[in-house]
């Protein structure tokens, strides 16, 4: 299973430098894959699963991931669950987190205007090359070439979870059945690792997720939702483009 990653740097830097920055991001993402993938038998996660590595001896990154998954399990009432499929699978957190870290690295290395889009989950900073904010479309859940919202952001993250792309792959842990009720959930906020996990959890909740999303809006995570029957909802401060 691969995920496409698109990177755009809009900084006024020499081409060679931009190339280095992009190479560094790619290196980091491949490193994350090697260390955390459940498809790579020698990854830290798989060694932890097999008991060859204890949590206490795990790398700082892995310990961070484990703690974050535990926090998210509580914050989402158990709807985000890294142990849902049985053995530990923190992939649902690792993807957003790795992009969040990649963006922070870019910023530290001098790129303050960029976005990274990993499979539809986006972390952006600064401005578009034209000087305005980054305009990001949210894919229409039935018409792949259309947008259901257009947002404008300078610094922040946008994550979307939906049932339209890969079918019933999100399971409601309360029922053990595929999540129903919501077709597409987008969460916008400061941190991509949280936005991504929140979007997935809300999708798993189904329609009660609308209430839960209203609650996290008070923590700075705005949302836009389309239900299975085509109703659209958004939180009050969703940064819609004008």
């Amino acid at each position, binding site marked *: 299973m691969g995920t496409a990653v*698109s990177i755009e740097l809009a900084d006024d830097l020499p*081409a060679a430098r*931009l190339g280095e920055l992009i190479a560094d991001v790619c290196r980091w993402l491949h490193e994350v894959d090697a260390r955390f993938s459940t498809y790579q038998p020698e990854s830290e996660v798989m060694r932890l699963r097999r008991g060859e590595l204890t949590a206490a001896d795990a790398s700082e990154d892995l310990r961070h991931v484990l*703690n974050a998954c535990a926090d998210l399990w509580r914050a989402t009432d*158990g709807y985000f669950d890294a142990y849902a499929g049985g053995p530990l699978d923190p992939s649902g957190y690792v993807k957003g987190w790795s992009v969040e870290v990649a963006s922070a690295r870019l910023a530290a290395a001098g790129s303050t205007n960029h976005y990274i889009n990993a499979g539809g989950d986006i972390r952006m900073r600064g401005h578009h090359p034209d000087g305005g904010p980054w305009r990001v479309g949210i*894919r229409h859940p039935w018409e792949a070439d259309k947008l259901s919202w257009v947002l404008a952001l300078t610094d922040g993250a946008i994550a979307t*979870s*939906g049932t339209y792309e890969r079918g019933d792959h999100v399971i409601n842990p309360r029922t053990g059945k595929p999540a129903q009720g919501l077709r597409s959930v987008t969460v916008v906020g400061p941190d991509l690792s949280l936005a991504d996990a929140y979007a997935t959890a809300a999708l798993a909740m189904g329609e009660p997720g609308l209430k839960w999303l209203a609650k996290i809006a008070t923590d700075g995570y705005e949302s836009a939702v389309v239900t299975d029957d085509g109703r*659209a909802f958004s939180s009050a401060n969703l940064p819609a483009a004008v």
Partner: protein
Amino acid sequence: MRRSTAAAVGTLTGAALIVGVRLSVQPPSAPAAAPPSTSLVDNPAPEATAKKPAGTAGGAGKKTTEPEKNKSGLKDGTFKGKGATNPYGTVQVTLKIANGKITAVDATYPTTGNSATINPVAVPKLKQETLQAQSAKVAAVSGATYTSQSYQESLQAALDSAKA
């Protein structure tokens, strides 16, 4: 060079956002579950009782028959309702009344274990609107996780190839 773009297709882990399967889920193991500091917000306080007017139960404030001042008949002070318990936990409402007017309403509710989701909370709802199907100019597209294959057919891929 004003900017540079690149699109790379990697094998980034995490495409599988599988949540749940089992009902009898254990809390996340070892290091995760270790810190006892679980609560995100305030803990429910089911045992708390009314502060001033002891014994005046009920979250809706108390109508007194005091003849004086407040037209509303509401006594000033902070009133805690009796905790209402359902299978998901205990909800307790607190009212603050100043000059005979309700100035604040607050509710404690469980945020861990079973049910922040099911108990409605006093926060604004998401607003309903009409679903759009637009084709605006954007720099990037957010959508459900796509595979490498479906990426090829996505709007983001079209954007990337336009810039390449």
